[in-house]
């Protein structure tokens, strides 16, 4: 039996090595099997968008739909009030009859999350603070969900839709290749698709062209323009009869007479009931079909419309109609989104970047490997082995956690390579020092690791602290950089410290026998 010592460090290193090879392989071979490292958009091309969600609009829209429901109940139960008025954040009305107080309280009790002020039968209703917050949160979640649905219908390979912070959404589309695709995707994503059915205020219609928004509000009206012709204005009751939240489906169809595309929509049972009741009571009046605050048509109600379906016609092109239908059926955005940031990278630029950074990574690695071998001899080869395993494990970990490799991430990887050898440089320098003092090889290796440890740990922890801070507060590029350096530091603690130590232990007998420090440590001991 020789003095070959296989320590637990050896087994840990061996396990790490196997792990690294096994899970980094799919990424290097770009095979379909197994988890691959995600390439950032800067490396594969695509469209990146940061959208801001307009929270206030969500509250406005919530107030509006509460007002619609309230209006419906008040009419149904014959509660007598002066006009229901809405502002951005509140609903106001006054009761005339004491007997109605109980009725209205019962109605209001049904609706959750309200803050009701009642002074002398003068009601002012707003959302409670908790409900407002919940509305904000819901608007964001709903927008993420809706955009995801819309992109699914678009048939793109792997869209990323994620919320960022309290009111932002990050969308990444890797499959976008042409400017036309980009344009379509952008329009689909940002379309609010907010459908409202609104009563035309016939009394005010003649003045619609000249009435200002403020004076219309005094009558409880809004002025909206026609979808095709900005100059045609409609005076509409501000509280919609119905809004898109009751919509269940929307499909493109073709009208029989002109063969132009129209959109058929279907309402859920509650919406259908309200729609039927309303049309029954208002035969002869006009009902405007409003999409994203533009009037598409305002047909006259000829009879009660049961069954809960209707149609939007308005000189759509077939493509437009398809987009609107997709948007409607995947759900309206409660709060409109606005494009805050947009980055698109052509596929050719992406592959250029990969190629160049791979050259840099391989070049730097070769330079380091060769140098370490010349400078430290076999100890340098140990360090090189640890370095290679380090890179493999970083790739493997990133693939497993679905982390994204970006261009700055590549730079981080290159830098990790540079810094990962630092631990071995410190250790090997210490070993040389001890050899110089005349210690035996066995003693020098053991004490070299011991002495180097506090410096390595302190420096690694400070680097790790910076990486964590960068990850926490960084966005995009900075985050990508932090991920690769952070993982690199942690992994190097195992590979560079335990891995190389295990190899020294493995060859200890040979080292002691040959005692050629020049060969083993690149340093000739002067005796």
């Amino acid at each position: 039996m020789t003095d070959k010592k296989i320590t637990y460090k050896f087994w840990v290193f061996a396990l790490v090595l196997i792990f690294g090879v096994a899970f980094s392989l799919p990424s290097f071979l770009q095979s379909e099997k197994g988890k691959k490292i995600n390439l950032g958009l800067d490396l594969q091309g695509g469209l990146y968008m940061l959208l801001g969600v307009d929270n206030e609009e969500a509250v406005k829209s919530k107030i509006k739909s509460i007002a619609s429901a309230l209006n419906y109940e008040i009419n149904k139960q014959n509660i007598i009030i002066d006009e229901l008025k809405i502002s951005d954040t509140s609903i106001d009305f006054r009761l005339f009859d004491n007997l109605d107080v109980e009725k209205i309280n019962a109605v209001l009790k049904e609706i959750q999350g309200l803050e009701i002020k009642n002074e002398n039968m003068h009601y002012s209703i707003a959302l409670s603070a908790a409900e407002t917050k919940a509305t904000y949160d819901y608007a964001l979640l709903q927008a993420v969900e809706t955009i995801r649905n819309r992109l699914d219908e678009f048939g793109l390979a792997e869209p990323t839709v994620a919320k960022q912070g309290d009111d932002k959404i990050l969308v990444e589309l890797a499959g976008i290749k042409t400017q036309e695709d980009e344009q379509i995707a952008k329009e689909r994503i940002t379309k609010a698709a907010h459908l409202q059915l609104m009563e035309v205020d016939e009394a005010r219609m003649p003045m619609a062209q000249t009435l200002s928004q403020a004076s219309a509000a005094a009558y409880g009206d809004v002025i909206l323009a026609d979808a095709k012709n900005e100059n045609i204005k409609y005076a509409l009751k501000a509280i919609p009869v119905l809004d898109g939240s009751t919509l269940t489906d929307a499909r493109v169809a073709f009208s029989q007479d002109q063969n132009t595309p129209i959109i058929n929509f279907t309402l859920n049972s509650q919406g259908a009931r309200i729609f039927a009741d309303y049309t029954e009571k208002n035969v002869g009046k006009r009902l405007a079909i409003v999409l994203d605050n533009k009037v598409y048509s305002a047909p006259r109600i000829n009879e009660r419309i049961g069954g809960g379906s209707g149609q939007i016609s308005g000189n759509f092109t077939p493509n437009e109609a398809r987009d609107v239908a997709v948007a409607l059926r995947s759900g309206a955005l409660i709060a409109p989104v606005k494009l805050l940031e947009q980055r698109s990278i052509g596929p050719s630029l992406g592959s250029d970047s990969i190629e160049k950074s791979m050259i840099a990574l391989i070049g730097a690695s070769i330079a380091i490997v060769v140098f370490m071998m010349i400078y430290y001899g076999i100890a340098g080869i140990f360090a090189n082995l640890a370095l290679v395993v380090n890179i493999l494990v970083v790739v493997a970990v990133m693939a497993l956690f679905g982390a994204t490799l970006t261009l700055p991430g590549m730079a981080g990887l290159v830098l990790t390579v540079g810094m990962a050898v630092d631990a071995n440089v410190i250790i090997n320098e210490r070993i040389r020092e001890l050899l110089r003092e005349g210690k035996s090889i066995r003693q020098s290796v053991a004490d070299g690791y011991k002495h180097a440890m506090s410096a390595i740990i302190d420096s690694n922890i400070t680097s790790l602290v910076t990486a964590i801070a960068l990850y926490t507060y960084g966005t995009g590029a900075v985050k990508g950089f932090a991920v690769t350096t952070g993982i690199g530091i942690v992994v190097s603690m195992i590979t560079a410290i335990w891995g190389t130590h295990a190899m020294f232990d493995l060859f200890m007998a040979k080292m002691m026998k040959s005692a050629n420090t020049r060969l083993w440590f690149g340093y000739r001991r002067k005796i």
Partner: protein
Amino acid sequence: MQFFSEKKVYDFMRMRFGAYAITGFLVLACIWLLFDRGLQYGIDFSGGTLIQMKYEEKAPIPQIREKLELGGDFQNLSVTEFGSDDEITIRFLGSNDNINENISDTISELLKDTGHFEIRRVDVVGPKVGDELKNKGFMAISVSLIAILIYIALRFEWRFAMAAILTTMHDVLITLGAISLLKIDVNLDTLAAVLTVLGYSLNDTVIIFDRIREGVKTSKKSDLAPIINESVSATLSRTVLTSGLTLATVVILYFFGGSMIEGFSLAMIVGIIAGTLSSIFVASPALLWFNFKIDHYRQKELDKIKRKQEAAKQRALYEKGSI
């Protein structure tokens, strides 16, 4: 193979006044640069539009500029060569926060007579986002500095922490000065570079400090300067090796990494050189400056060991059942 003679102790501390003069001059120069010329914020921070285009032949920059100036209302328009003479970037500030318009179509249309080209990259950043990024970047730097200050103060001593932070700030300042001087665009990548310099410089400083701490504990000398000299000399070959290798990596990145990371690597090159020199010539002398008291530190360490031994003794007694 080895670089430095083995037992030689270099008298770094005697050089410190010279180093002070040079560092002081450099720091003042950087501060002057930052105030006078300032930083050139890229669109990541200032908000605006950047378009990168590749022509099939040499890009006719004057013609492109003229077409754009005539054809549209772009604020602070700049058209520059990017990497090679067939590739250009067009940059302008965002005039309003409505960025929904399809800018690549507009540009394609305006420039259709200037030759065959391909639009390779379009970045549009709203002003609000830029502000937020600036704040976050500032937060990231501050938080990591504070966290490191606490860590070093706990592991070493508060004077070490102060010296380390002073050094780091020196390096960041020099890097920013270089960024200003070399007119590198400050964008997310450059920020990442500054943050790496911060981490690298600390790494270097901590390793030297570790050796000084060890020297203070083991040496019999009661004067700090010779201990610093010994420690810095002992770590010199490590410092030169690691910095040399890291520098080599970043230089390779600069030459072969493509124009996208040119600014990043240039800032890193300056930062690594500054970080290496400062850990020797700024961090270590700063310990003298802050009046680090050896005897006091040794006494504290001794007390610590005593307390540990006392605790171990107590535990041993307890386990034996004597208490």
